[in-house]
């Protein structure tokens, strides 16, 4: 297998990683300053994950939109589909950070939570 160059996005160090998939399916990683880099690189090669962050519309004039995110990582290829879904929402209740507004978004196993304070 050939080597793949990656940049770890887990923390501000942004380590430049070199990852290689081995014959037995495991992934060999170099360049990481901590073990999180190994998990990141393995996920990148097998099934890349991202947290969705964005905004959802609300019914309140002082907050035309409010910041939201998925409470855990979701498959990268689903991000645009989540964005489209979130853009169809409109909140009618005032929320604070951590309040869940949609459970199990699109059946991906993550909840959509508000990250800004409207109260």
């Amino acid at each position: 297998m050939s080597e793949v160059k990656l940049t770890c996005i887990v923390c501000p160090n942004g380590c430049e990683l070199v990852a290689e998939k081995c014959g037995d399916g495991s992934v060999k990683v170099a360049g990481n300053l901590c073990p999180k880099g190994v998990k990141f690189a393995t996920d990148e090669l097998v099934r890349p994950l991202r947290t969705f962050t964005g905004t959802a519309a609300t019914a309140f004039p002082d907050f035309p939109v409010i910041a939201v995110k998925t409470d855990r990582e979701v498959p990268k290829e689903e991000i645009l589909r989540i964005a489209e879904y979130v853009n169809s929402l409109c909140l009618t209740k005032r929320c604070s950070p951590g309040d869940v507004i949609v459970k199990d978004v699109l059946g991906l196993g993550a909840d959509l939570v508000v990250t800004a304070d409207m109260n």
Partner: protein
Amino acid sequence: MNYGLIVIGGGPAGLKAACSAAEKGLKVLIIEREAQLGGILKQCVHDGFGVIRFGEKLTGPEYAYRDITEVKRLGIECLTGTFVTGICDKDGGFVVETTSAQGIRSDFTEKIALATGCRERTPRQVNIHGTRPAGVLAAGACQNFVNLKGLLPGKRAVILGSGDIGLIMARRLTLEGAEVIGVYEAKATPSGLQRNIRQCLDDFGIPLHLKTTVTDVYGDKRVEAVRVSAVDDSMNPVGEGEIVECDLLVVSVGLIPENELAEKLGLQTDPATKGIAVDQYMMSAGKEGVYAVGNALHVHDLVDYVSEGAATAGADAANTRKRSLVKVGAEGLMYVVPQYVDVSDANEKKTFYMRAPRDMAVASVKLYADGELVAERKLKNVKPPEMLRIQFKFRASDSITLRLEEEE
């Protein structure tokens, strides 16, 4: 009213400075011109904030919420929707004048923290020919439209400059259903962080064109197209270039500390940071009792260090020091903050923030006191967009110099 510390600006810097001072027993007032506290973090809805300070990835609003909760817990007085119009010296302290919907007001304080954040270099400050029709926006202004007002300022965007806010907006606009045609950067290396290029551009197949710039904007009332052109090493366009149709040009070409109030106080500024010159407690070198924190002092790339510096300043506001300042020489560096060191407390660990002028694979920062090498730190993968933070402990001396050297 009388205060021990008035903090101007309710972003992360102001909030943290206020909390640290209040914890030391000072009576603190925060003055913020916007309706809500939180500063620029309110519009930074993406995550990645707080990894160093809290050990978790937070979004901008979540990071701000933690400090706002702390401000409330400490019972710190806040005036929002209030603009500081003037500051002047009085009886060893300062009088701060403000205006708000409630009218004008004037307060006395012993010390002041300037936490007014930064301004964006505007599209007008960039050398582009043609008209300035609607649809030419600075990246931060674009972020404000999309993330706070819920407005999409265009459907087909070109991004000029590879600063982090521009990269973040490339992703945001894509998620909001706009098409981002590309990011154009005149320099040979990007100004934003590599991790943002990966997760904001590469993830969505948005191309980054280095050594390319926008030379002309076309359109009468609204942007209709721009001309992009390759540039040579002296940034001069080569060839005819190419017309790219778009209805939005987002300009992400850097930030400058907001210094209007510092100028009113006649404070000395550092031409390299464009913020005021300070000692290791972020107190103005030229004027006792005035602190500058966060982006008002120098533009930070990580909010975690904004909070760190602000905490230092806030805690110091409760002290009285008899200062003995020594200028910090900077060699091979773009800048160093603090620019001065109060050597009267020579044994304390001192934190220096600095930026390298160019990429270096291996480098070292050396600290000289009275010409003698007293400390050295090895660094790897040094890049100008990433601020360096190094702590040194050293003896009182008459001259201090920091030198960045590239190593083989």
